[in-house]
């Protein structure tokens, strides 16, 4: 049984479908990359996987006891966060909020978990620093550490490298691969097709309809990839 099973799903706003006929599975330990152009419906799909939107048609099933509050999420940065006065530690710790329930304060275990994740992502030495004074790459690491506090099973990433320079981008991709190898399933939304083809294990390419779903090896040989990669190569 797959971790996430999506069958015959249509998504959209107020009954107007944006994406139709989605059929794919995510197995435990997969690294799925959802690629497609702007407006192709990949963000909508991601929001639905996160339980923030409902499907119009079809169904999405979670198994292995995966609950809504066990998904780690790395959203895109918002305007609010750019001048937010908060320390790195405070932000990483806020990833534990979903396991707090009604308890008003964090437990020892949660604090240890936050410390562990900061260490894993190499930000333990800047734990007391102010978030708004960090570089873009460091900020993404902080948010990734927070996402890891929220999950042991599934990580959902929304354009994690947007606005980062090439070296920082490579480092972040490597970090995500490492996390994936440790057993956490990763779903990444991206329009960087080349990186997807390099790091992911499975690819879902959508443009209002699913154009391709399969393993990376199959994808590289597919017509979809060849036509988009040549176009993408010129653009970027």
């Amino acid at each position, binding site marked *: 049984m797959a971790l996430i099973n999506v069958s015959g799903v249509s998504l959209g706003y107020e009954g107007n479908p944006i994406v139709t006929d989605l059929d794919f599975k995510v197995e435990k330990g997969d690294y799925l990359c959802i690629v497609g152009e702007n407006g192709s419906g990949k963000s909508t799909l991601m929001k639905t996987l*996160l*339980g*923030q939107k409902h499907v119009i048609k079809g169904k999405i099933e979670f198994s292995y006891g995966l*609950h*809504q*509050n066990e*998904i*780690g*999420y790395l*959203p895109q940065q*918002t*305007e*609010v*966060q750019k001048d*937010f*006065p*908060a*320390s790195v530690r*405070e*932000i990483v*710790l*806020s*990833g534990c*909020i*979903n396991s*707090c329930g009604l308890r*008003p*304060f*964090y437990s020892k275990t949660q604090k240890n978990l936050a410390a562990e994740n900061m260490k894993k992502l190499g930000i333990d030495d800047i734990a*007391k*620093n*102010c978030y708004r*004074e960090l570089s873009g790459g460091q900020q993404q690491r902080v*948010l990734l550490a*927070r*996402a890891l506090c*929220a999950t042991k099973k599934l990580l*959902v990433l929304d354009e994690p490298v947007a606005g980062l320079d090439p070296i920082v981008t490579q480092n972040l991709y490597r970090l995500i691969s490492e996390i994936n190898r440790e057993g956490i399933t990763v779903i990444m939304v991206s329009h960087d097709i080349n990186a997807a083809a390099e790091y992911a294990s499975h690819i879902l390419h959508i443009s209002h309809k699913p154009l391709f779903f399969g393993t990376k090896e199959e994808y590289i040989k597919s017509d979809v990839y060849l036509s988009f990669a040549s176009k993408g190569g010129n653009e970027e």
Partner: protein
Amino acid sequence: MNELLSYFNYPFVRYALIAGVLIALCAALLGVTLVLKRYSMIGDGLSHVAFGAMAIATVCSMAPMTVALPITIAAAIILLGINSNSKIKGDAAIAMISVGALALGYLLLNIFSASSNVSGDVCTTLFGSTSILTLSESDVWLCAALAVVVLLVFVIFYHKIFAVTFDESFASATGTKTKAYNILIAVVTAVVIVLAMNLVGALLISALIIFPALSAMRIFKSFLSVIISSAVISVLCAVSGIFVSIIYSTPVGSTIVAANIVFFILCTVIGKITKKS
């Protein structure tokens, strides 16, 4: 100094100080969240709604609080809670409700008021004038009780409020009920604003909410330190404002706001200096 201490013999001074400190404390705590959520104008909008509600209360000769509190809470929920998917966007909705309530309130007072000095009454409600110095014991108790509730809510939900303020989409994606917390924040905002009307009047409440938060943010860099320092700054400003206004018989509300402005400038300078060194 002795002269200052002698003022404590008057009960109205003690009442004003207790109420002033409590209101300033609540406003400052809330202010940090509202400023960071980009809702600085909500204080202004809601205070106009509270003014409109007070006008209705005056016309119907009911106790102002009993009318103002529910109406303001309702307006706050509409503005903060449903905001995200309504057709009229944030700032426009606030502007619309606020001027609408202000106009209707003034209209009602003019048509129905029995008082001979309508503009004087309106001025009092808008700028607070001396009302803080005329608080009765029961007013102070009500103020204290509500302030304690606000403080408790804040302490109990501190981490959740932080999570929802910093990143609403992460919080809701990982299973926090962000909508419920937004409504909670809205209700608390409304309560604080209705309380603060006694202190500084309807037009100046925003100052009480945003200034301490902005001052604290000039200097401090973690959420906890910003919250604590903004509470301290707010209380200091309220106390000094009340004393100055008693000694030099200036209007209480605007004196407190003036104190806040001074602190803000001070904090900006300190922030600039510490950043350089």
